[in-house]
């Protein structure tokens, strides 16, 4: 999923302070799962903003809505009936959702209420870890299901480097060395030979080296 964390309240308040009527929009997808921008967080943020404005001696009108998916124009269309009553939109979705709203409702300022972090997985309750950088050319099939691009601090394709020690990375004692994990996994699977094959320098074109990426599925296009 795409992970996110709520921005500091002070920053959010600075964004919306010139406006009296705010449309606060959450998203039922990734940001709900990582507890950053779902229905519950929309309610909490609305309360916090209301409390802050009351302390300042003013009232703001916050309309709360949580869409099924903010990165999908079909669902963003649901805001049409509310948009005229808002001076600004505060989005609790990832950057994709914020931009989908900004593209659809060009006449309204749109502000992000979360910082989009990374594509990650849930490690345990309340902990999400980076697992994918969307490099566009998945190597997991040859690295034992452990991604060196996302999990090696140097993104090495032929690791480990000299900074590995007892299975940990030199950058911090609680960071696993991805290449130690890869080696152990390949060994366990009896696929050590794969480790010995030298990988060529990565082609960064699928990773967006040449500019913003796009997927076109002609079989699905209208």
């Amino acid at each position: 999923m795409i992970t996110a964390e709520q921005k500091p309240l002070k920053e959010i308040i600075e964004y919306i302070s010139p406006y009296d009527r705010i449309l606060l929009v959450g998203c039922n997808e990734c940001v709900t799962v990582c507890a950053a921008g779902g229905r519950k967080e929309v309610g909490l943020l609305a309360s916090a903003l209301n409390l802050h404005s009351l302390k300042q001696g003013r009232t703001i009108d916050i309309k709360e809505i949580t869409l099924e998916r903010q990165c999908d124009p079909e669902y963003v269309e649901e805001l049409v009936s509310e948009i005229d009553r808002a001076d600004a939109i505060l989005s609790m979705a990832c950057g994709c959702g914020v931009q989908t709203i900004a593209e659809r409702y060009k006449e309204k300022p749109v502000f992000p209420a979360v910082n989009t972090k990374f594509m990650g997985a849930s490690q345990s309750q309340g902990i999400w870890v980076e697992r994918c950088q969307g490099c566009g050319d998945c190597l997991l099939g040859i690295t034992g299901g452990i991604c060196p691009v996302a999990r090696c601090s140097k993104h090495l394709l032929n690791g480990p480097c000299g900074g590995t020690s007892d299975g940990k990375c030199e950058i911090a004692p609680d960071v696993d060395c991805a290449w130690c994990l890869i080696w152990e996994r390949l060994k366990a699977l009896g696929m050590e030979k794969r480790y010995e094959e030298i990988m060529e320098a990565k082609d960064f074109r699928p990773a967006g080296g040449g500019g913003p990426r796009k997927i076109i599925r002609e079989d699905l296009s209208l």
Partner: protein
Amino acid sequence: MTLQTKLSKGDLVVLVEMNTPKGVDISDLVTNARHLKSRIDAVVIPDMDNGVMHMSALAGGAIMRQQGMEPMIHIYGRDRNRMALQGDMLAAHVLGIHNLLVVQGENIAHGDHQNAKPVDDLNELDLLVMVHSLLKGTDLAGFELKGKPEFFTGYQVQPIQDDDHLEEEIKTTKAKVDAGAQYIMVPPVFDIDYYIQILNKFKSLNVPVIATVFMLKNVGMARYISINDPGSKLPESLITRIRKAKDRETECIRIAGEMIKELKSQVAGIKISASGWEDRLPAILDCAGL
């Protein structure tokens, strides 16, 4: 007299652009530079021009110093992060390279190493801030340098597409001047009257303006520029002139020389780009009366 001194005195400066080789054979670079030694003020060395891997501009600049010539090197953020850029700037100073031109690197997708990872840690404005910081004796992390470098730093204006874009580019360039650009270089336009109008607008930024004369090499090149870069305002009459000439190469040299003649009273300096025909540069200077 250095390039900076001449510009500050208001004397016309003449620069030529010379690429480093794709390889280690520097004989053409050295030979072509030597033929121009007493006739020009500086040699501009692009770095990986058009996104094509060449010997680094730093080496090209050092070679020019060995030849007793004043270099100007391109700097941009596509291939190096802020650490590498700052390290190279310190190296440039000790190698005697003091003229820098901040340029926008060609997109990696248009070069010859399309699978490379673009760095883009710093943009043009950031680079000017970086140079300014180094000049003051501090790196971008705030640490003090042992010995301050000296640079004369300019900014390469983006190609002008139309009048609206011109106004936008003037604003953008002003931000670069405010950030420390001490001169600006304006890309070539082939309609001289229109080019002079553009150059005059950039003069309002109160830094020396250097015009660029780009040498057309044949009808095909002229046609390509005319179609793909409408902002260059390459008139059909120029293409016809080359096409009808008995000796097209000489005609191209003559055209470049004439452009220089018309521009030299209008600007602080002229840079000549011969795009691979650097051995014809003396002939262009002859035609221009320089």
